[in-house]
């Protein structure tokens, strides 16, 4: 046996959330109605963090809308906020951006990836054609048009780096050294993680290192700086291979956030109180959801080996 000992990075939700400070740039993983690190999101709101620059996933869901509605966000880097058929456009996203209280760094899915890749690769910018001929460069002066320098004449966009202080990513499982494995689709999570200075994994389970070594091909994010165990941590959204989204819960969110947009802040405040502020921690939150409801969301594991 070696005399040296590896550093373990497991922390509680509270310890991890205390690292997210007002004014930081924070990326939130997941995609659409899936794999968002909601236990962390709720704790960040409870801490009263403000003025965040949020980097949403390419198709961000209402986890971003919740943070906006809770007053945490100053600027948003994101190409979509909504929940498709449940909610085509996030209501708080609309409310705050239409009122001029939310700065939106207009981008598309791949211009977002271009910025993340520029950050991950230490480049000054990453070049991409998508966005040429659209209103994106007018709305977002950080993107600069240039002409193909290799003898061409086509217009290209230079997208500057997007560098989150932290990327918070939900995985199926991780070991105590920060090696996380997605058990379903990973969407844009690897790119958010690679672009960030530090990585926080929210995991359904902390598993022994041997489980990770059994199939290192499945490791999507290695050596995260912090690992937080939060079973059902994506609720009300799905976690691939674990549980599906809680449709009624999402519909209730949509109704309450719609009320907020239309000026009924009472309904919205009551929502935040009930689902975010009153439960003292993640377990207390799950208790308010109820065991029967949570078990009803169970899905058969999709990926096994």
């Amino acid at each position, binding site marked *: 046996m070696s005399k040296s000992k590896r550093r373990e990075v497991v922390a509680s939700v509270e310890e991890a959330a205390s690292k997210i400070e007002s004014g930081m740039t924070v990326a939130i993983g997941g995609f659409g109605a899936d794999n968002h690190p909601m236990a962390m999101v709720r704790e960040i709101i409870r801490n009263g963090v403000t003025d965040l620059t949020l980097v949403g996933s390419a198709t961000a869901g209402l986890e971003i809308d919740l943070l906006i509605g809770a007053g945490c966000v100053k600027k948003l880097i994101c190409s979509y*906020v909504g929940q*498709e*058929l449940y909610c085509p456009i996030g209501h708080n996203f609309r409310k705050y951006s239409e009122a001029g209280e939310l700065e939106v760094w207009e981008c598309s*899915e*791949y211009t977002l990836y271009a910025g993340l890749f520029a950050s991950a690769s230490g480049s000054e910018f990453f070049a991409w054609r*998508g966005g040429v*001929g659209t209103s994106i460069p007018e709305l977002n002066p950080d993107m600069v048009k240039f002409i193909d320098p290799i003898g061409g004449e086509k217009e290209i966009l230079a997208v500057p780096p997007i560098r989150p202080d932290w990327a918070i990513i939900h995985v199926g499982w991780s070991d105590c050294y920060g090696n996380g494995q997605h058990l379903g689709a*990973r969407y844009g999570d*690897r790119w958010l993680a690679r672009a960030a200075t530090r990585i926080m994994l929210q995991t359904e389970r902390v598993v022994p290192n041997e489980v990770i070594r059994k199939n290192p091909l499945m490791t999507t994010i290695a050596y995260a700086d912090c690992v937080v165990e939060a079973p059902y941590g994506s609720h009300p959204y799905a976690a691939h291979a674990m549980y599906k989204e809680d449709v009624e819960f999402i519909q209730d969110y949509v109704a309450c956030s719609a009320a907020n947009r239309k000026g009924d802040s009472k309904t919205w405040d009551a929502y935040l109180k009930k689902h975010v502020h009153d439960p003292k921690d993640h377990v207390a939150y799950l208790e308010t959801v109820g065991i029967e409801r949570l078990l009803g969301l169970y899905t058969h594991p999709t990926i096994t080996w």
Partner: protein
Amino acid sequence: MTDHSWKEMMAVVFAREIEDHHKITSGAHTEIFFAATMLAQKTHAPNLKLQLGGSVALCNVTDMEIPELPKTSTGYEILRYAESIHDHADTFLFYGAPGGADYYKNPDKYKDVNHFWFADKFFVGGIQADKWGNTNMIGLSDGKKMTFRGPGTIGINDTAIGVVDQYAFITAHDKRRLVENVDYISAPGQKIAREKQFNGNGTKWIVTPKCIFDFDPDTLEARLAQLFPGVTIEDVKENTGFEVNVSDALSTIEPPNKDELEVLRNEVDKTGVLRH
């Protein structure tokens, strides 16, 4: 005439556009495109290379049972139909030759088709579409500032540069949505696609609940090309915010036939998501 819903008709209309050698990316939203692409694989395009599920899954359902159409683009159900799941950024990259049985038998026939662009067809939504086929997901403006915040462009402009044909899809036909010029452009139509030298052609059709517009090859402006059964030219003119030019080849869309409806209802949309 068969008894069918508008959504079923749309699914069939799009399925007919799909050929066996195509590559398709169907991004977010709407069960109609899930149904159209799955219907095509189960009828005439079993080799269709199909990206679904937030476009991170390559799916083939030719020999698979579909208990229920997926409700969201990221639903875990889609993983069941997947043969590959990749990083979302890979969605926008080339994923192989045209494929399709005939491509390998008669390669000469496919010399000029899409070898290197990432998809042949893509369906884009919009809160507005204009006579140039530009679509807008960004928002509405009073000329000075954004008065209505739209959902965001998602990846439609990223697809626009490399997809051969994009189909703009507007869910209600009125003067607010079909306009002279969109307030913001999120996916360009044919004119801009040509000016900016995109690999793709830009918008091929604008599809609404009333009709299909295609584009005049000379002016690159929209023209009324096909009407849904029961809709009149006047009806379209009255509800469109730009001057409606009518194609010389104007036709009425053939409603779904018995065979198409049978596969759609019995194998693709068993629970009748599209029927209402």
